[in-house]
C-alpha cells in the first residue's frame, strides 16, 4: 500500500543527559511546596502528626494548595463503572471509607477521592524555617560558658602529615589512579606523591546548658484543647533551645492548688479536678532551681501555661514570685490559653507587670501557638547573643 514509507524508519539512541527539564521543574515544584509550608507554618506546627511524632526525622504534611485546581466532578457523588472477576453482585461492597474518628468533625473534607498531596519535610527544614525568625532573648553569659570543650574531628585530607595518620585507602586510590594514567594499571610502586594523610580540625563548642521549667495548670478547667496548645508550644520551645544550648533540661511541674514535679507523659495527659493556685507552681519552681539548677551555671526559662482561672486572692503572691523568679531566670513566659476570650483573673494582674523579661501571650486558637513562639522569641535589638 505504502511501499515508499516502509523503509522509512530510524532507530536511534542519543545522549539525553542534558535533557534536565523534568528535574528542573521538579525542583521548582519543591520550591513551591516549601513556600507553601512557610506560609502555612502557623497551622503546620500544631499538626498533631508533628507534635506527636516523637522525633521522627521526616514528617508528612498535607498540602492542599498545590493541587492543580480545575472544575471537576464531585468524585463522591459520581457513578463509576468497574469490572469484577466474574461473580460480582449488586450490593457488593467494594470499599469503605475509613471510619471518622470522633472529634475530627472539622476534617470532613479530607475524604478519599481527593488527591491530597503530602509533602515530605525533614524536621530540620521545618525547624530552620520556623527558627529563622526567632532568637533567644536575654541570654546571660554564664560562668560555664567560658569553659569550652574542644573536640577533634578528622575531616580533611592532605598530602603532608604525620606517618601515623596515613589514609591507606586514599593512598591506594591515588596510586591506582596514577598507575592507570601512565598505562600500567594496578597497585604497585607507591611513591611519596601518592601518600595521603588524614588531618583534623579542632572544634570549639561552647559548653552551655539551659533548663525549661514547664509549668501547667492541670486543674479541671484545663481541657484537651488548652493542653494541646501548651504541648505544642513546649515541643517547639524545647527544640528551639536545643539549637542554642548544648544541653537542655526540661522540668515538668503540674499544678492545681499545689504543684508537683511529674513526667512528661503525666504532664500532658493527666487531669485533676479542683481549683487553681498558680503561686504553688512558682514556689515549687524556685525550690527546684535552688536545689538543682544554680543560676550561675544554667540559663533558666520558666514558662507557665494556664487558662487564667486563678484564685483571686493568690494573684498578688503570683506577681511577687514572678519577680523572684526573674531574678534567677533569663525570662519568664506566661501563656494563657483562652479560647473564648474571657477576662481572666490572672491576666488582669499580669498586665501590670512592667518588666522586659516578663512576657505573656493569649492563645485563642491553635494557629496562635506560632505567634506565641514568635512573641516570646522575637528577634531583639541590642540583646546579648
Amino acid at each position: 500500500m505504502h511501499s515508499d514509507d516502509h523503509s522509512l524508519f530510524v532507530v536511534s539512541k542519543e545522549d539525553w543527559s542534558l535533557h534536565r527539564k523534568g528535574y528542573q521543574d521538579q525542583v521548582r515544584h519543591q520550591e513551591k511546596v516549601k513556600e507553601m509550608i512557610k506560609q502555612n507554618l502557623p497551622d503546620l506546627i500544631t499538626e498533631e502528626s508533628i507534635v506527636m511524632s516523637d522525633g521522627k526525622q521526616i514528617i508528612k504534611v498535607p498540602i492542599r494548595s498545590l493541587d492543580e485546581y480545575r472544575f471537576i466532578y464531585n468524585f463522591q457523588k459520581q457513578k463509576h463503572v468497574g469490572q469484577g472477576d466474574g461473580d460480582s453482585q449488586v450490593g457488593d461492597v467494594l470499599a469503605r471509607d475509613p471510619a471518622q474518628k470522633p472529634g475530627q468533625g472539622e476534617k470532613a473534607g479530607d475524604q478519599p477521592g481527593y488527591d491530597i498531596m503530602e509533602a515530605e519535610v525533614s524536621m530540620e527544614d521545618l525547624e530552620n524555617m520556623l527558627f529563622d525568625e526567632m532568637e533567644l532573648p536575654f541570654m546571660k553569659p554564664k560562668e560555664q560558658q567560658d569553659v569550652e570543650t574542644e573536640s577533634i574531628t578528622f575531616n580533611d585530607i592532605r598530602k603532608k602529615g604525620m606517618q601515623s595518620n596515613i589514609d591507606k585507602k586514599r593512598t591506594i586510590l591515588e596510586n591506582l589512579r596514577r598507575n592507570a594514567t601512565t598505562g600500567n594499571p594496578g597497585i604497585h610502586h607507591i611513591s611519596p606523591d601518592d601518600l595521603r594523610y588524614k588531618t583534623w580540625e579542632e572544634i570549639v563548642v561552647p559548653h552551655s546548658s539551659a533548663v525549661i521549667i514547664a509549668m501547667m495548670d492541670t486543674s479541671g478547667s484545663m481541657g484537651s484543647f488548652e493542653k494541646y496548645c501548651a504541648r505544642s508550644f513546649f515541643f517547639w520551645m524545647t527544640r528551639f533551645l536545643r539549637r542554642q544550648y548544648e544541653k537542655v533540661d526540661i522540668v515538668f511541674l503540674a499544678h492545681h492548688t499545689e504543684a508537683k514535679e511529674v513526667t512528661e507523659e503525666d504532664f500532658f495527659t493527666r487531669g485533676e479536678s479542683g481549683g487553681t493556685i498558680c503561686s504553688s507552681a512558682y514556689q515549687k519552681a524556685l525550690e527546684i532551681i535552688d536545689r538543682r539548677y544554680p543560676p550561675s551555671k544554667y540559663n533558666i526559662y520558666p514558662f507557665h501555661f494556664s487558662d487564667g482561672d486563678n484564685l483571686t486572692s493568690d494573684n498578688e503572691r503570683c506577681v511577687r514570685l514572678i519577680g523572684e523568679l526573674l531574678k534567677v531566670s533569663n525570662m519568664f513566659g506566661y501563656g494563657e490559653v483562652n479560647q473564648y476570650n474571657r477576662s481572666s483573673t490572672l491576666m488582669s494582674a499580669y498586665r501590670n507587670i512592667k518588666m522586659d523579661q516578663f512576657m505573656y501571650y493569649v492563645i485563642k486558637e491553635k494557629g496562635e501557638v506560632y505567634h506565641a513562639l514568635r512573641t516570646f522569641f522575637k528577634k531583639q535589638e541590642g540583646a546579648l547573643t
Partner: protein
Amino acid sequence: MNNQDEIKQLEYAISEIMEIADGFGLDYYPMRYEICPADIIYTFGAYGMPTRFSHWSFGKTFNKMKMQYDFGLSKIYELVINSNPCYAFLLDGNSLIQNKLIVAHVLAHCDFFKNNFRFSASNRNMVESMSATAERISQYEMEFGTEAVESFIDAVLSIQEHVDPQLIKAPHLDKQRYMEHKIKEQKESAKHDPPAGDYDDLWSLDAPKSKEKDASASRHFPPEPEKDVMWFIQEFSEVLEEWQRDIMSMLREEMLYFWPQMETKIMNEGWASYWHQRIIRELDLTSEETIEFAKLNSSVVQPSRNSLNPYYLGLKIFEDIERRWDHPTKEEQELAGRKPGQGREKIFEVREFDSDISFIRNYLTKELTEDLDLYVFEKKGPEWKITDKGWERVRDQLVVSRVNGGNPYLVVSDGDYLRNGELVLRHEYEGTELDLKYMERTMPYVYQLWGRTVHLETIIEDKKVMFTHDGKKLHRKFV
C-alpha cells in the same frame, strides 16, 4: 552485546514487523524510534510531549511517575507521539521481545492517529509547535518575570479543558466574523416560531435551525452560549496583555491537539493491543520469547478492579466486533444484511469513524458487558457499593463518563452580565455535581483571567446555585 548490535537486531525486527503490519493493512506515518533512559521517558510522559513548556505541575507529575518507577510500581515501556513522522520512545533496557511487542503496538497507534476521523484536524508538526511555544514562554519569562508568567499559566491551566473541540468550526479564531456570524444566525432564527411541542423541532430538522429566542436577545453577548471558555476569555477579557493572550492561545492549541487522544483512549489502546497480539503471533519466537511476550502482554491487558483498563476493554470490544461481523447470526444476516467474514473490514471501519463514546454506545453488547462482569458502583453512606449490573445502564454510564473528555461541560452564558462586563459560566448539569472545594479554588483563577466579577451557575442538591467571585471572596446564592 554492545549497543550497535542491539540496534541492528532491533532494526531487523522492526522491518520484519512492519512487513507483517503492512500485510494486515495498517497504514502509518514514517517512524522514528528513539531509545531513551527511564527519566527521559517519564519526563515525556509527564509533559505529554518532549518539547513542551516548563511548569511546576509537570515537575510534580514527573516526580510522582518517576517515584513509582523507582519503587517498581509502574513502568512505561513506550511513548508515542501523534506526529508525522511519528516519534516513538522506547525505554532503554527493554529486552528485544519487549521491544518487538512495543514496536507492533506503536505502529497500530500511529495507524490510528493517521486514520481516525477525530485526528483529522491534528497538527502533525506539534513537536515543533510545542517547542516554539516553550521557547516563547521562556522569552516571556525573561521579559515579564518568571513569577508573573508562572502565576498566569497556573490560572490558564485551571480552565484549559474548556475548549470547543469540534472539528468543524468555521467562525472560530476570528473575533469579528464570530460575532457577525452569531448575530446573523440569531436574526434568522428569530423569524421562526418557537416549537410548540416536545417533538415539533423534529419536523423542521431540514429547515434552517430555529431558536427559542426573540429579537431582543440579540443584544446578548455572546449571542449563543460559548463552549470555548478559553477562546472567549482570551479574546474578550479586558485585562489581559498581549503576551498573556498569546500564551492562552498557545495553550489552547495544545489542548486541542491532546483532545482527540482523550476522546479515543479506549479505542486507541484497544486497537494497539489488538494488533500487537496479531502481529507477534506471526513472528517466529523461541519458547522463552513466547513466555516473555505472554507475560508482558498480560500485564498490559489485564483487567483491573474498580477502574477499567482501557487496553483490555478496547481490545475485547474490537475482538467482539470482529467476531460478530465474521459470524453474524441468522437474524443479523437477514435483518441487517450482514454477510459473514467481514470482521476485519468492519474493525478498520470502526477505527476510522468512531470515538470512545460511539464505540461504547454502538458496540458494547449485553453479552460482552456480562462476560466482562462490568458494573456501576457508587457511594452509599461510607461504602462504595455495586448498585447496578443492567448492561444498558453500565453502557450508558460509561458513555456519560466519557462525555466532554470526562470534564464538566461549561459554557460562557453571559460575557456582559448586569451590563457590567461580568462573566457568567454555566455548568450544563447532567446529573453530576461539581466538586465544590475545587470550584472554590478555581474561581479566583477565572477572576484573575477575566479581571471582573465572575459567576458560575450550577446545580447543588437539585437547586440552582450561583457562585460569585468578586476578587475577594466567593459568595453563594440560590437562584
